[in-house]
């Protein structure tokens, strides 16, 4: 048998043994998972130093020791050595690189049957490559070993369920100074095959070495510890006692260093003992550390909420709150009327030793987050009866302190571990606004200043409406209604809004003008514009609650002189802006807007009838991603705008007039679908533009004195070209040149072009020709009648 064959057989035998060990370990682990741990096993009396050995009764793995060695190479290296270092010089390999020399990272990963992103198998349970910053897991290329010994065996042996020994071992491991370097020199042949970016000289890697002890309990035990406070308490008590055993722990360091497993490492443990004392003290201190945060917030005028949060791993008892007695007799009497409530319990204030006290016996059991290292508990209390003071007794609240006791040590929680503050005093408003209490109503009404005699605006709490009755009002500050609250402007209301101020309604809006008593919304200054009257339908989202889209019903209203505003992360580009709501606008006039749009609707449904948009600076109306219908309305745009802009919307328009826009009478973009009938488009640069996937059907309409009738183009590659399908049109004094690109299309059927002089005679020939007979072209004749209006 050749040497190679013998080596192979040994390797096979080794693999078999490893597999057997792995199977046994798995079975053992599985068995451990279902072990029921009796509460008796938490009896601290069963743990302790007996004949020089710490006896544990509760798990073979109660405390987890982690020694992480992490290296962050900048690029693929050949392989790596971890070495122990003394005086800056390597004194022996701690973990040797595998034989996977020259393999790059990915190839090496494959040899291990692992891919990038895996956690390390951590075979060397207590020493191994940890998680490094960039996920480059070096340990994948290592076959860890100790000189002459199998490392996994060595450290498993050491890492048994002996908490005391683990603490000591942590310090022993921490005493190692470790170096990692690439495994050079290598042969010339190997070197030649290296990629150009692999270092060819010896280089050291930065090593991050950390040692930590974590209380990682087996799952069944942890579950019970979480759910059964008594068990947790017993566990803490015992850990606490472990930490108290510093001299014994220190003594065990020598024993560990001299153990069979570590003797080969030739450890110098002289520095370990002082560090061990620090560690033990830290553990003990940890169990003593209880941090408490006390937040007191006044809500309304008669109650304070107290939120007490405990950061601790140990249970704590709140014995009560106390504060110095208020100075004056009447205030002392008032203070004695205070009551502390916690769920069903209620405690009255008493005076004891010159201090005001509330006696409780409330236990805090902090709930661990990840491990039992990090645990918090929070309880809320209400301090009722503040109204007895006539005003909020801030000095009393500022001085109110909790008294707490650590249940493990039995010591009071020191005052310096309690942080507390009384929350911002204006938080009253925030809470009140959310709940719609009187303070909120007053706050809203204050923003609406009545200019003359009459009723003040009132908040109807049942319907959640702020109702403004007939009269003149000034809006002196932004009037922003809370989500769900509506605004009603009754007939005869005149709102005068200060420059730059706006109204934002996050609920329904009803503007109930009448022909003889319209509602008007204007600015207070002729020169400086106000902002916007806006409705936001997505005021607040409540999970699981499908909020109805707010309805906006406006009739007989004049809105003038707004410039738009930016509120709550939203730009409202219209002097009237409606987002995510259903708008019905009738007999309205929107004029003199200094905003981008006199009306802006986004994601809305609209019905517009008998409404006039005139003398506005830019667009008359802008409907984005909306749907609806328009009838008998007049749209005029400014020199810089369109009469009507429709972006991504689906709208039917009938019997309307578009005129005098510096740009387009009707501008459809971004996939809009528009059906236009019986309308007049007059005096614009372009009658209809269809861009970027928009589709416009126009029938029985009249184009009058536009520079050109149509433009169909694509400006944005995301969309396709524009489409215009026109039928039965009369073009009066409108230029013949349409604008069209290769991706767009204009289809026209039955179109008559006439000069301006022929306008008065257009109707008659239409009614006599076959193509334009009476019934069918009622809409067209209506459009023609608009020409003379």
């Amino acid at each position: 048998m050749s040497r190679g064959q013998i080596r192979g057989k040994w390797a096979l035998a080794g693999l078999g043994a490893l597999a057997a060990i792995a199977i046994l370990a798995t079975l053992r682990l599985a068995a451990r998972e279902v072990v029921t741990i009796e509460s008796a096993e938490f009896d601290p009396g069963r743990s302790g130093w007996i004949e020089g050995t710490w006896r544990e009764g509760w798990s073979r793995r109660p405390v987890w020791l982690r020694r992480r060695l992490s290296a962050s190479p900048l690029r693929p290296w050949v392989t790596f050595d971890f070495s122990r270092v003394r005086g800056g010089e390597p004194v022996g390999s701690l973990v040797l690189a595998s034989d996977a020399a020259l393999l790059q990272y990915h190839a090496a990963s494959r040899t291990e049957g692992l891919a990038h992103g895996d956690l390390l198998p951590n075979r060397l349970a207590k020493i191994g490559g940890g998680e490094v910053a960039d996920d480059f897991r070096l340990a994948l290329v290592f076959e860890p070993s100790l000189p002459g010994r199998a490392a996994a065996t060595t450290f498993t042996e050491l890492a048994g369920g002996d908490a005391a020994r683990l603490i000591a071992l942590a310090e022993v491991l921490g005493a190692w100074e470790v170096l990692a370097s690439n495994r050079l020199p290598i042969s010339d042949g190997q070197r030649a095959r290296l990629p150009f970016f692999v270092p060819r000289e010896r280089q050291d890697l930065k090593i991050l070495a950390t040692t930590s002890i974590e209380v990682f309990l087996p799952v069944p035990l942890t579950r019970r510890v979480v759910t059964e406070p008594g068990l947790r308490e017993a566990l803490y008590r015992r850990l606490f006692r472990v930490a108290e055993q510093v001299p014994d722990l220190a003594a065990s360091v020598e024993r560990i260093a001299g153990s069979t497993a570590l003797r080969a490492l030739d450890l110098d443990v002289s520095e370990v003992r002082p560090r061990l004392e620090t560690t033990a003290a830290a553990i003990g201190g940890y169990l003593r550390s209880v941090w408490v945060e006390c937040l007191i917030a006044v809500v309304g005028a008669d109650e304070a909420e107290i939120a007490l949060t405990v950061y601790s791993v140990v249970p704590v008892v709140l014995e009560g709150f106390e504060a110095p007695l208020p100075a004056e007799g009447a205030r002392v009497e008032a203070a004695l009327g205070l009551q502390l409530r916690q769920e069903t319990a209620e405690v009255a204030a008493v005076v004891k030793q010159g201090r005001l006290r509330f006696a409780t016996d409330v236990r805090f059991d902090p709930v661990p987050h990840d491990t039992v290292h990090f645990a918090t508990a929070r309880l809320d209390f209400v301090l009722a009866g503040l109204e007895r003071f006539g005003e909020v007794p801030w000095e009393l609240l500022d001085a109110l302190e909790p008294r707490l006791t650590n249940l493990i040590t039995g010591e009071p929680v020191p005052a310096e571990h309690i942080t507390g503050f009384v929350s911002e005093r204006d938080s009253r408003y925030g809470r009140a606004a959310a709940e719609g209490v009187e303070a909120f109503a007053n706050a809203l009404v204050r923003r609406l200043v009545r200019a003359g005699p009459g009723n003040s605006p009132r908040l109807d709490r049942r319907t959640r409406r702020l109702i403004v009755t007939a009269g003149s009002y000034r809006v002196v500050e932004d009037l922003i209604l809370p989500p769900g609250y509506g605004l009603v402007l009754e007939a005869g209301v005149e709102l005068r809004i200060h420059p730059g101020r706006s109204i934002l309604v996050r609920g329904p809006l009803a503007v109930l003008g009448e022909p003889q008593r319209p509602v008007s919304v204007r600015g207070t200054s002729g020169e400086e514009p106000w902002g916007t009257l806006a409705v936001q339908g997505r005021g607040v989202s409540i999970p699981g609650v499908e909020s109805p889209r707010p309805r906006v019903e406006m009739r007989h209203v004049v809105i003038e002189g707004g410039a738009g505003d930016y509120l709550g992360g939203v730009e409202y580009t219209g002097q009237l802006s409606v987002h995510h709501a259903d708008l019905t606008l009738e007999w309205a006039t929107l004029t003199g807007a200094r905003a981008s749009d006199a009306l802006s609707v986004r994601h809305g449904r609209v019905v517009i009838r008998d409404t006039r948009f005139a003398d506005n600076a830019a667009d008359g109306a802008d409907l984005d991603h909306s749907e609806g219908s328009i009838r008998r309305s007049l749209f005029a745009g400014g020199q810089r705008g369109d009469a009507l802009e429709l972006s991504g919307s689906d709208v039917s328009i009938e019997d309307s007039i578009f005129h005098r826009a510096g740009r387009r009478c009707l501008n459809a973009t971004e996939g809009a679908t528009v059906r236009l009938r019986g309308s007049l488009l007059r005096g614009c640069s372009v009658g209809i533009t269809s861009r970027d996937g928009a589709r416009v059907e126009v029938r029985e309409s009249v184009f009058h004195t536009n520079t050109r009738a149509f433009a169909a183009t694509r400006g944005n590659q995301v969309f396709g070209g524009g489409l215009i399908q026109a039928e039965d049109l009369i073009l009066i004094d409108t230029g013949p040149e349409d604008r069209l690109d290769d991706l767009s299309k204009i289809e026209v059927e039955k179109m008559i072009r006439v000069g301006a002089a022929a306008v008065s005679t257009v109707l008659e020939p239409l009614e006599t020709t076959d193509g334009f007979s009476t019934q069918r072209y009622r809409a067209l004749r209506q459009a023609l009648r608009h020409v003379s209006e």
Partner: protein
Amino acid sequence: MPSRSRVLAIDWVVVLLLLLIVGGSRAAELAPLLAYRLRIEPEPLRALQDFRDRIYDMNFLPPGERLWIPARFEHAGERYPVRLRIRGDLPIHWRGEQISYRLKFTDRLFQGRKEINLIIPWDKHYGVELLQTRVADDLGLAYFPGRFVSLAINDQDVGLYYENEHPTREYLQRTGREPSSIFTFAANWTFYFGQRYHTVWFEKPGTRERPPISSLGQIKQRRTFDRRNPEIARRQLGYAAEFYALLSEGSLEEIAARAGLYLDLENFARYVALQDFFGSKHSLAFGDNTRLYLDPSSGKFEFMPWDTRLMSLRERWEERGGTLAALLEPDDDMFRAVFEAIPGVRAARDAALGELLREGSVYAAELDRIHARLVRLHPEDERLRAETKRLGGMFRKNLELLAPYAASGAEIARKR
């Protein structure tokens, strides 16, 4: 009564239809991936290689160091001029044999896309990210469309890539959204690398006052907003800062009262459900994997899933005491604050997660199908085979662990 011959004929039709269906799906599985070709001239290619060598030494690709080179992209007989750069801040994207790229189409859009990423597939956990887009679609969340492609550079095959669309204005428009800011947060990166990253200064709109954001690292505002209105973009940044400040420093009462004004809470709950479904903690924080779209018409932020990682829930479950409730408690303080302040969010998450889990076997089969196709197309890739097997197994194990939520989630959904 139909004749026997007619019955037979019907049988044959059924059989043929079945064959067509089975054969069709089989053909789809065997169909080659889309083939992309990149042509890079020698000079820019050399510059790119030098650049890669340089970032090796930095071990990080800082934003200020990015190198764009001209190239030509070819697909299906069409040629597109592009600008190209190495993408990915961390070395995983550029230190191995394959490199992740970002392509920007300079002249005309490619299938409506302005920018795409070609990402090394293991960074996206192979089929997991693709499956994530389908889950996101089912949940009604916005997502960045993805697919697997084969890439060749200068006629040399460089392997399998995961392509996904980069957040751009064009992407927003194509998916029916208005152009607006998408935000990413990067506090943890600064902490880690000790260098500035996407640093932004901002003020509260209309004041000289800086918001009280002591814990805020950086906010990255992607240029997906309407560039015609830079003032609004600036204000949106301030708005994002306000939102961050509320969640990071506000009391639970404040969060309860105001978080719903900023955040689409249903979207948030579904986003968390998606992450929990995959056991992913990678994007469950306000960090560099956050893609937070600001709906400019409502002022609501929406999460867009990005970089979902499949992670084993078992270990985490053990560490957390073996309870599902503890397992699914958000780690991130800000996420947790929303959960604590607004109980309805947790219920919404549970309901959405329950819905996903009831379809768990369908999703698992879908993941297997994606992986099987990749393996079939790349039988030589041992790593692909091993990794996809591992990921598929992990996904199923996670589903088993989460199974009790399917019933409780259904109950919650019913109550809602």
